[in-house]
């Protein structure tokens, strides 16, 4: 008996050390960003690994001013939040349609969605800007939400599609006999069962839209409409980079995401965890 206990202990010790090893491997570049955000350009070039001489927030203040951080943060939040809502709502419903009805057109649509995820963005970039430029949709933050629905829907639907297949129909069918419509059935029975993948999709999409720069750089040309990634490019030149400022800007741009992530983890993942493997 005691022998078995020991192997369990050794196994869990092994597991812990493995987890810790990977944690260090994954986090250390971020640690480098953190310590270099407090250094001058000179200090960074001389010794990127060393701790900063003084913990001054000068870089952060300069970066804040240069970026007009308060403006771009608002824009980024607005675009990201709205995009998430429309993406989750419409893609989940769309996936339901593709999974639960066996029409020929659904097979074709699914095929199209998978294809669409592979389109190199650069190949449709110029036509995209000419079309929407003529329609006067440039410099509009709300138009961005619509664009993100178009570009993000295929992948979000694809992910829901895989996970929705595994949900049993019994509950739904029972509810339908009681006169529940497809629509309310979906939201009451199916969607709550998709919590774990919804959280994953949320995190992935938030990060994508939050850090995306190509699409906003094409659409949001006026200064007051720009998002965070666009403004961080003020710190990179082809021949010189303001590394200290760039690092500070980077920290400021990912901080909100980390906060959101931790919030999600606390409130949503906890709920999902009840159904997880113990």
């Amino acid at each position, binding site marked *: 008996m005691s022998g078995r206990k020991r192997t369990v202990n050794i196994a869990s010790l092994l597991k812990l050390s493995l987890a810790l090893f990977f944690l260090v491997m994954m986090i250390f570049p971020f640690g480098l960003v953190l310590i270099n955000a407090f250094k001058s*350009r*000179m200090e960074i*070039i*001389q010794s990127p690994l060393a701790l900063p001489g003084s913990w001054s927030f000068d870089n952060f203040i300069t970066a804040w001013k*240069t970026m007009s951080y308060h403006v771009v943060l608002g824009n980024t939040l607005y675009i990201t939040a709205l995009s998430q809502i429309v993406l989750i709502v419409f893609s989940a419903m769309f996936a339901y349609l593709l999974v639960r009805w066996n029409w020929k057109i659904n097979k074709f649509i699914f095929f199209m969605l998978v294809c669409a995820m592979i389109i190199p963005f650069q190949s449709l*970039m*110029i036509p995209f*800007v*000419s079309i*929407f*430029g*003529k329609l006067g949709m*440039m*410099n509009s933050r709300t138009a961005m939400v619509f664009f993100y629905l178009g570009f993000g829907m295929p992948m979000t639907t694809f992910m829901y599609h895989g996970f929705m297949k595994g949900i049993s129909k019994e509950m739904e069918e029972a509810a339908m006999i009681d006169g529940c419509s497809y629509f309310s059935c979906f939201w009451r029975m199916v969607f709550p069962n998709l919590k774990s993948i919804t959280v994953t999709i949320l995190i992935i999409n938030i990060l994508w839209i939050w850090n995306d*720069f190509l699409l906003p*750089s*094409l*659409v949001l*040309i*006026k*200064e007051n409409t720009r998002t965070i*990634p*666009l*403004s961080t*490019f*003020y*710190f*990179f*030149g*082809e*021949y*010189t*980079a*303001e590394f200290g400022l760039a690092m500070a800007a980077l920290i400021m741009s990912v901080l909100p995401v980390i906060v959101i992530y931790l919030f999600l983890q606390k409130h949503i993942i906890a709920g999902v965890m009840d159904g997880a493997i113990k």
Partner: protein
Amino acid sequence: MKKFLGMIMLIAILAMAVVTHGAPKKVEISFLVTKPEIVTQFRKTFDAYSATHPNVTISTIPLSGQTIYEKLTSLYASGNAPTITMVGGPEFTAFKDKFLDVTNTKFGKAAYDWSVRRTTMNGKIYAVPTTAEGIGIMYNKTVIEAATGKKFDPASIKSRKDLRELLQKIAKTKYAPVQLSNMDWLLGSHMTSILYAAMSKDYDERQKILLQCAKGKFDFMRNDTFNGWMDTFDLLMTYNMHKGAPLGNTYEDDQLAMAKDKVAFWVIGNYVYPNIVGMNPDAKVGMMPYPISDNQADYGNSQITLTHSFFAIDGAQSSKSEQAAAIDFFNWLLTSAKGQKHYIDTLIFTPVYKGFSIQPSNPVAKEIVSYMKKGKTLERMSDYFPAGITVKFGAAMQRYMDGVGTRKDVADSFKKDWLEMSSK
């Protein structure tokens, strides 16, 4: 639906007209900053301009990691062309039809004739130079004097022979004689500019050579200038402090080594001077020509290569008032006392314009200006290259530095690259 939208637009425009009637016209112009490293300086300059011209605001569009060509293509396609942009030679060729003719503007007339040759078509000027940048060899006075124990005058290096003798002396001391950078823009664009410019004194002759190159008919191996240019490169490679791993050093390393007085010579341009002084305020560095031969009388040995990008104003999608505002801004920047002060002190530029009341105070820019005044400058030939070829030139030079290519390989790939990139 369309009609309905049209109506709404019409009403909106009428309302705007009513509201703005009588008030001074507000103009907003945009500026595509293709040198992100000086965007802050530009913003300061714009603020200074707006302080005296309250009805004009100038906003900046960052390049956000794209190429100038890509950015301009997408901006023009979406109908959002920047009012002002900074372009190099290849982009100028691609968008020249979109740019405004500035021949008869005050600032257009102030530009030196030789500096707008590249951007003149049918006798009309479509873009003006930004700032003069000299490319050649940067020398570190402190290091050279410590190594030789004698005063150093850059004018004493009149040919490759003089440089070789000095390098031999320095190599015997604890100082490194040379460092070579490996960035492809330096090797493929700035350095090759020297090569093609030194081939002939005569503008038309140089253009002829480029035409021959484009047809794949130019024999580099039999060209004295090419061989001389390579001989100097060989000499520098022999004394390169990174000889063991010539592709391992970064641009930052190189700046630091120069600023910290560790190395005597470095092939680079004076655009790096602000960085050097930022690292070491007491740095005593300067620019001298990249010698092509042992004979001091040969063209190229006493000339420094000038490079600059261009300011262009959009003439296709900007309104008349926006264009007028852009012209007025450049008149202010390049011909008024206040603007010139910002040009020199805020942007740290070196004027390529007549009638500047003030001149740069930093020693390296002064050197460049004196070369310009004496007419000892070489044209920036990379402005005439086909797009994308500098990347290929850079790759060929990197191979050579790394020891996986011979001189003949460099000549062959130059020939091949010209043919391939010109035929597209």
